Every structure is written in structure tokens, then in C-alpha cells.
């Protein structure tokens, strides 16, 4: 997702482009830039970083020009570099473009342009549009006709804004499957990805529909159909609006938004190239000692990795919480240390990585934030591309990290000869089925989980039990519950229960049991017998199960049948929802629980 802003005004732009992309930062913030007319040419200022960081380097404010466009970017693929940042210009610099979306046919278009002698500065699909536009202008001699001819060549999704030295009065814009609107002010008009782009200046907007393009001057606008070229009648929509909700895209909380974004985030993680995964697998397969580390959610993610590596790759992995790593660090030059972090800025993890590096270990990190300290520090990084995670309580980032560790385990297993080609295909298919399975939980189990959450919101204690790979799931689920609801929840290996904790169980104590599918017979039987131990002491048991006929539990949520490789993800999503709905039932501050910070960058 990226954000677009543009201003055409009778007055100097001053800070309006800066303000526009600043308000759009929730759509992405790894690089940004502005472009505006300056003495006969178009000046572009762009760089890598947040809007404020780029302003510090390039000065995005106090712009004297009257017409300009701006962009803030969140790369899901490809690198974050100054060259790849928007705006992009045509070879002569006469046309400058910002773009949100993906041009599906950019490869053949780019190949054609290169064949004709074109040279590209960036790796983006956007620059292709700028080249095409300049070519069309040379042929047609008219900016609007060239704009239309160019748009007709494009397939895929786009929201575009463009300025040209051949028409200094206008911003040209277009929409197809990515949002774009025009803001109608007095003496100034605007374009933007959404109302945030110009919210301080006008609430009057004209909404472009798919397949429409527009031209905007300081005191007029026109919208036409790309197909017919005919003007489209547009009415101004006045949008009353609450800045507090900006960025939640229709969700009540970022936490629910991010839970619902998981299918898409997993799809993106499955598109990360095999070569990128295999490069890390090669390091791990060659190492004598392998350690995974994280802290909080990412510690449990690492622990999940430990189980999946034992199972698939037959590789022993030491898992250490980042804050304890230094006290246990026996790594050497034959070691690989893999760290997991959403922000890539976690203080304990960075310190531990440095410690390991000093002892000669090779380091790897799985991180979500491109360009973060950790991404720069380690020998190899896997960027998970999950999009911004705003809620302090991690959901999608952690889940995607688990998917990536699964992919790594398969790759190491292949290298070690313990995962056959047939088995790899089976595992890949299982992973590919995961997004849809999670969607079915969100669509078909949210109701029953919410009813359970509201029904038990007043309980003071939860015990979350799991065995095998469901043990780290239980731990992570309990952490979700604690963080966001402030209700005491303890994750525990189910076999551990009778060695002490069982004495806590009475009718005031709720237990959630993560029951594996029946086809994993040993694990299944052992887990259900733990549930029976709790029931025998009068404890309430909520079963997260795959078996609709099991009547052992006081209440149950039945998850859809799934391959054992991906089955553990499903009750974890169910546990995220249980924590979320319990928090809303208790009216907690869901996105910013008390005492917690998103990224712990201190010791």
C-alpha cells in the first residue's frame, strides 16, 4: 500500500504536500518524495525513510511552487532505495508520476522500451509508465491524449497522479482498482489516495471510479471515462470525518484489522523467492550449532521453529529468549544465530546478535520493517513483507514469521535429504491452503468465539494447554490473552500439568485446550487425557478441536480439517480472536494496552 497526495493552487504549496503524505503515512512509510514545477523544469526530492526523516535530508516543506505531487511508499517486494522511491520521471524529466498499485504487464512493456533503447533508473513498474507517457507525447503532441493512450496500455491496478512541463496548470490523475479522489477547495484543488491527503484544507471531494481519469486545475476539475473519453458527471461528496479513526480502514481496532490481514500477509510470505529462503537454509544446514532467538511473541515464534525444525528438518535448534541470550551464548564461527523481530529494532535482540557476531557466529534475521537496524546488522535478512503492524499486540507479524520458519525448515529438510520432493510438494500445497483456511475461521468461527469470549470475560484465570507443536501455540495464545485483556493466562505443556499446577484447578479456573487433529493419534490422545484431568477437578474446559463429535469439553470451537503442518495455525488464530473479543468485552485499550510499547528499544 502506498499513499498519493497532490496540490494545484493559486498560492504557493508551502507545507501542503508534506502534510498530505504525513497524514498518509499509515499507508506506508519506508520512503517518500515530492515533485513540483521549478523554473521550467520539475524538481524531485525523495529519499528513504519516514516523511520526517526524508524531510530532514531533502526538505519537503516551504515549497514555493503552485503545482506538485507527493508519495509515501511501503515496499512489499523489492528494495527500499532512493531510486525506487517515488516520484519517478520520464527519460527527459518532462513527465513525473506517482503510483499506487501494481502494473501486471510491466515486464513486457519494460522489455519493449528497453529494446527501443530506453534506460531505466529504478526497478519499479511506475517508471515504465513515465517512459510510455513521454513516447506517446512525442507521437501525439498533447498531454491529455498521451495520458489516455498510456493508460490504455496498462493492465493491473493503479492510482496515478502526474505533472508535466508541457502543462503546468494541471495535475493528471487516474484510478483503476486503487483508490484516488479529488479534493475541491477554494483557489486550490487536491488529489489523494484518501481524505487524509488534504483533510486540513477541504472536506469536499469528488470520487473517481475505476476506469476514470481526471484533470485538476486550481479552480476546476474534469473527470472522463477512459474507455469512451466522454465526461462523467460527478457530484461533490462532503465527508464528515474523525481523524482518530484514520488508518483503521473500517475496522474498530488495528488488532482486528491485522488479524484479518493475515491471509493476505501469508500469501505475500509464500511469494518470497525460494532462492531467498534457500540461501538461509544453506547457512543453517552447514552450521554445527543453530540458535533461534526472539523475545515476547517472537520467542514463542522461535520455539515453534524449534519444533518444526525437529519435525521436518531433523535439525536440533537451541531457542533462547533474546534477553537471556548473552548469559548462555556459546556460539562460535560454526554457529548460525537466527533472530525474529517485527520492528528489527528490539534492543535485547540487537545486543545479542552483536554478542554472537563478536564470537564469530553468522547471523540471520526475519524482520518486517525494511531498513531497520537488525536488517542492516545481520549477514542475511528475510523481509517478511507483512505491511505495517500498528497494534502493540503482535498478530500477523508473528504468524507470518511462523510460516517463514516452516518454509525454512522444509528447505533445510530438502538439503539434508530428509524431505523428499514429493513431501516438499505436499508441504507447499498445505502452506498454500493456509490463507483460505484462516479466512474460513474469520468468516465462520468469529461468532462462536466472540460468544465464548463474552461469556467468560469475567473469569480471572486461564490455563492454556498444548502438547508438541501445540505447546508454543498455547504459550503464544496465553501471551495474547495477558497482553490485551490484563487477565491472567498461563501457557503450559499439557504433560506438565500434573507435576504441580493441577492443584490450582477448581471451578473458578478456565482451561483452553489446543487439541491436535485425531490423525495425529499419540498427540491427540495425550492432549485429551490432560483435558480430562482438568474436568475431573471440576475445571471448565474450552476445547479448540478439529473433531466435531468430541463431547469431552464444556464448550468447544471446531476448526476446519487441515493438513497437520498448518493445523496449529488455525487454533492460534482462534486464540487471537478470543483475546481480542475478551478485551472488547472488558473495554480494554486494545491497540495500546497499558504499560506496553510496540517496539522495546531499551534494555
Amino acid at each position, binding site marked *: 500500500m502506498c499513499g498519493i497526495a497532490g496540490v494545484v493552487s493559486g498560492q504557493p504549496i508551502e507545507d501542503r504536500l508534506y502534510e498530505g503524505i504525513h497524514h498518509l503515512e499509515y499507508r506506508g512509510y519506508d520512503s517518500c518524495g515530492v515533485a513540483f514545477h521549478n523554473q521550467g523544469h520539475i524538481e524531485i526530492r525523495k529519499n528513504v525513510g519516514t516523511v520526517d526523516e526524508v524531510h530532514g535530508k531533502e526538505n519537503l516543506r516551504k515549497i514555493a511552487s503552485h503545482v506538485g505531487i507527493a508519495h509515501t511508499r511501503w515496499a512489499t517486494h523489492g528494495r527500499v532505495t532512493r531510486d525506487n522511491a517515488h516520484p519517478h520521471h520520464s527519460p527527459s524529466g518532462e513527465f513525473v508520476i506517482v503510483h499506487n498499485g501494481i502494473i501486471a504487464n510491466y515486464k513486457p512493456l519494460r522489455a519493449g522500451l528497453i529494446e527501443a533503447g530506453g534506460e531505466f533508473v529504478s526497478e519499479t513498474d511506475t517508471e515504465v509508465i513515465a517512459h510510455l507517457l513521454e513516447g506517446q507525447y512525442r507521437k501525439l503532441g498533447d498531454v491529455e491524449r498521451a495520458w489516455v493512450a498510456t493508460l490504455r496500455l496498462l493492465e493491473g491496478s493503479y492510482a496515478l497522479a502526474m505533472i508535466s512541463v508541457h502543462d503546468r496548470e494541471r495535475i493528471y490523475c487516474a484510478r483503476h482498482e486503487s*483508490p*484516488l*479522489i479529488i479534493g475541491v477547495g477554494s483557489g486550490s484543488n487536491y488529489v489523494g489516495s*484518501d*481524505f*487524509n491527503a488534504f483533510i486540513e484544507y477541504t472536506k469536499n471531494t469528488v*470520487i*473517481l*471510479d475505476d476506469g476514470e481519469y481526471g484533470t485538476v486545475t486550481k479552480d476546476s476539475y474534469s473527470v472522463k471515462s477512459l474507455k469512451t473519453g466522454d465526461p*462523467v*458527471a*460527478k*457530484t461533490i*461528496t*462532503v*465527508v*464528515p*470525518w*474523525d481523524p*482518530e*479513526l*484514520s488508518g*483503521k*480502514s*473500517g*475496522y*474498530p*481496532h488495528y488488532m*482486528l484489522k491485522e488479524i*484479518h*490481514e493475515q*491471509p*493476505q500477509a501469508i500469501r505475500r510470505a509464500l511469494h518470497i523467492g525460494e532462492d531467498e529462503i534457500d540461501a538461509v537454509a544453506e547457512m543453517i544446514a552447514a552450521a554445527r550449532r543453530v540458535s533461534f532467538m526472539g523475545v515476547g511473541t517472537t520467542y514463542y515464534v522461535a520455539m515453534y521453529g524449534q519444533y518444526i525444525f525437529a519435525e521436518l528438518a531433523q535439525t536440533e535448534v537451541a531457542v533462547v529468549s533474546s534477553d537471556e541470550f548473552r548469559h548462555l551464548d556459546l556460539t562460535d564461527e560454526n554457529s548460525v544465530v537466527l533472530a525474529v523481530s517485527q520492528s528489527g529494532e528490539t534492543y535485547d535482540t540487537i545486543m545479542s546478535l552483536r554478542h554472537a557476531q563478536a564470537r564469530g557466529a553468522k547471523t540471520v534475521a526475519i524482520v518486517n520493517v525494511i531498513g531497520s537496524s537488525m536488517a542492516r546488522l545481520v549477514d542475511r535478512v528475510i523481509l517478511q513483507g507483512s505491511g505495517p503492524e500498528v497494534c502493540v499486540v503482535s498478530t500477523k507479524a508473528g504468524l507470518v514469521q511462523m510460516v517463514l520458519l516452516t518454509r525454512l525448515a522444509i528447505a533445510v529438510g530438502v538439503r539434508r535429504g530428509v524431505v523428499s520432493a514429493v513431501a516438499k510438494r505436499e508441504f507447499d500445497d498445505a502452506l498454500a491452503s493456509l490463507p483460505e483456511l484462516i*479466512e474460513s475461521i*474469520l*468468516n*465462520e*468461527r*468469529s*461468532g*462462536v468465539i*466472540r*460468544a465464548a469470549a*463474552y461469556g467468560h470475560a469475567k473469569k480471572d484465570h486461564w490455563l492454556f494447554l498444548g502438547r508438541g507443536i501445540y505447546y508454543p501455540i498455547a504459550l503464544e495464545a496465553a501471551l495474547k490473552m495477558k497482553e490485551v485483556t490484563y487477565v491472567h493466562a498461563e501457557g503450559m505443556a499439557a504433560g506438565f500439568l500434573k507435576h504441580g499446577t493441577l492443584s490450582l484447578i477448581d471451578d473458578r479456573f478456565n482451561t483452553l485446550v489446543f487439541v491436535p487433529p485425531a490423525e495425529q493419534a499419540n498427540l491427540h490422545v495425550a492432549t485429551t487425557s490432560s483435558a480430562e484431568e482438568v474436568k475431573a477437578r471440576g475445571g471448565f474446559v474450552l476445547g479448540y478441536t478439529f473433531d*466435531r463429535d468430541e463431547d469431552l469439553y464444556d464448550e468447544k470451537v*471446531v476448526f476446519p480439517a487441515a493438513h497437520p503442518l498448518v493445523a496449529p495455525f488455525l487454533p492460534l488464530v482462534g486464540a487471537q480472536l478470543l483475546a481480542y473479543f475478551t478485551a*472488547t468485552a472488558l473495554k480494554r485499550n486494545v491497540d495500546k494496552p497499558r504499560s506496553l510499547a510496540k517496539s522495546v528499544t531499551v534494555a
Partner: protein
Amino acid sequence: MKALILTGGAGRNLVPFSATRPKASVMVAGGSLLRRSIGHLREAGVTDLTIVTGPNGDKIHRGFGEGSELGVNLSYADQGQPSGIAQAILAAKDRFNPGEYLILVYGDVVTSANPYPQLLQSFNSFTGPIAAVCLPGPPTARYGNVYLSGTRITRIVEKPTEENLGNYVLAGMFVLPTDLFGLVESAGDMEAVFAQLMAKFGLHASIWESGWIDVESPWDILAANQMVMDTWEEARVSRDAVIEGNVTIAGPVHIEGGSHVKSGAVLVGPCYVGRDCYIGNNSLIRNYASIGPESTIGYGVELKNSVLFGRSDIGRLSFVGDSVLGEGVDTGSNTVTINENLDHSPISVDLRGESTRTGLKKLGSFIGDDVKIGASNTLAAGSILEPGTIVPHNATLRGPRD
């Protein structure tokens, strides 16, 4: 942005109230459903409202007029005899300009907080058609399931399987383009309209997580009243109310101007006393009692979890619990609403000749507008009294279980 509020539905299950008033003028927590919706829209900056009315729509028209008292501009369109949402929408077709977006509101929905800022924010994010969706609480077969992919609505399943009940449903609030009217004309019913919206424009969901109740059955009024009152956090007494000595006020009690609370009365919140009411000596007004304007509560009356629409006279030493009383209902002294079965089994209600399970262990009576009940009457749990009924003194009304 303008809004279109539909209030013309027949409300066939909302007996005995729908015979004399539109659903939207049912009262909860001291205000009608419609007044609440209009207030929320106004707070969100939406002030140009068209209300589609059906039978008894003049009640709304007379009550709200041009809307100046509420700070909005109201206009009305009459749908005549109700025959579905599609027909209701078409009744307002000429009030909107092509190329516009409008907010569409089903008038029988109650939310615990203002849903429109979030709905408009969703519209801001997608600048395309938006439908509010929510999880309706305990699983019910009343609604179809909405399927989401991210926020995109991919399909609406009208008859979900047993284990899929209670998932996301349409919450009765939308932001839609005026193309809606054309779609309704060509498609005919709402199911087809939504399918076409999804196919042609894409339909995005705005997920509503706070309280939501679709008032369909008479006991939904009690649930909605509770839901709204649960959001009250403080007591509020008008400066124009008279509170005599030795009155106890505990918890969030709201008392409007012109009311007179006599000595010895105990009010335990959340509860509501509308304007110009008289609360008699030694009465007990406790949790979730909502007394509409111009009512008289006699000496020693106990009221709990009940909604009185207004202009009622409750005779001395009566008990009204878990009941809904329409406007102008009078009871003689010593009237008792029985509100539970002796074996504590859930109470059934006779809805249009059919015994309907409510699942509620405590439920009193539903008494239509302008019913007059004589002294010393006992009303069985789950009784329904049609509007205008006159019950003589000393009669015992039998319920469906007797």
C-alpha cells in the same frame, strides 16, 4: 453526505406495538430508535436526512417535523403499504442526485455507540460502497452470513449451516452510490442488489464490534434498553426536576426536567425518568427501568427492567418487571406482572398465534398503546395485550402456559 432512513417496515413480530406505531418509534432508554439514529448521524456531521415512512408514518412526521429541534433537515417519503426494503428505497429515489453517495440506514437497528464515524472512515479508506457488518451475539438463524476477504465482501449466504450461525451479518448501515436506485429497479430484491453491488462496484465491510441489536421481537426492546443504559456512567438530574427529601439515588440515574420525585422513593441506576413525570412516595425504580415522559408512578410501585413509552399511569402498589408498556397505558392499583415460571423454565410468548420461545427466564408482559387495566390484576408471564384493550378490575390474564 445525505442519509436515507427506512422506517416503513411492517414489524410483524413486534406485537403489540407495531399495530399502532412504526418500529422506529419504539422507545429505549428514554428515546425512540429513530431519535437515536438521527442524533448519531448529526454528531457525525450528517444533517440532510430523508425518512421513508410506511403505516402510521404520520406519528414520525408529527413528532419530528422538519427536524429543526434536532438540528437536522428532515424530508419524508411515503412508501405506502410496506412490501420490502427495495420498494422503500425506491420511494426516495427523487431525493438524491446521480453520482452522489448516500448513507442508507435501517431504522430498526440500535447500537451501543455512534457507528457513523467508523462507517464514514471506511468510506474514506475505500471510496466505494460500504456495508457495516457485525457479529450479532448468540447464534441465530435470523440473518444471512457475510463472507469477507480482508474487508471485501465476497458473498452473502442467506441460509448458513447450523454451525456457521452467528457470524458476520449486515448491520443495516451502508454508504452506497446513487446507482443503488437503478440497481434496485432492475434487480428487484435486496439480495440481488447486493450481489450486483459486489460484482460491479465491490462492496467493503466496516466491522462494527460494539453492541448491536436489530429490534424484531418485543423482548428485543428490553435488550436494546439494557444495552444503551449499560453505556451510562453517571447520574444526571435536570435542574428543573424536583427531588424531595429522603430520596435515594444510586448509580447512573437520569431524571429529566419537570419531574417530581416524592419523598421515600428509591432510584437505583441505570434507570431513566422522562420529563414531567411524577414518582410517588416510597416507590422503587430500579435497574433498567425507563419511564417515558408525562407518566405517573403511584405510591409504593416497584419498576424494574421495563420500558414505559410515556403518558402512563401506574397505580399504587403495583409491580412492573421485565415488561414493555406502550404509550398511554394505565394500570389500576395493585397490578402485578408475573415475570417468571415457577420451575424457572424459559418463558414462551404467543406471537401471532404461534408459541415462540424467548429463551428468557424472566419476562413480564407486552402491553400495547392505550391499554387500560383495572385494579388488582395479575398478568401472566409472556402476556401480550393488544392496543386499546380494556381489562376490568380483578381479572386474571392467563398466559400461553396455562
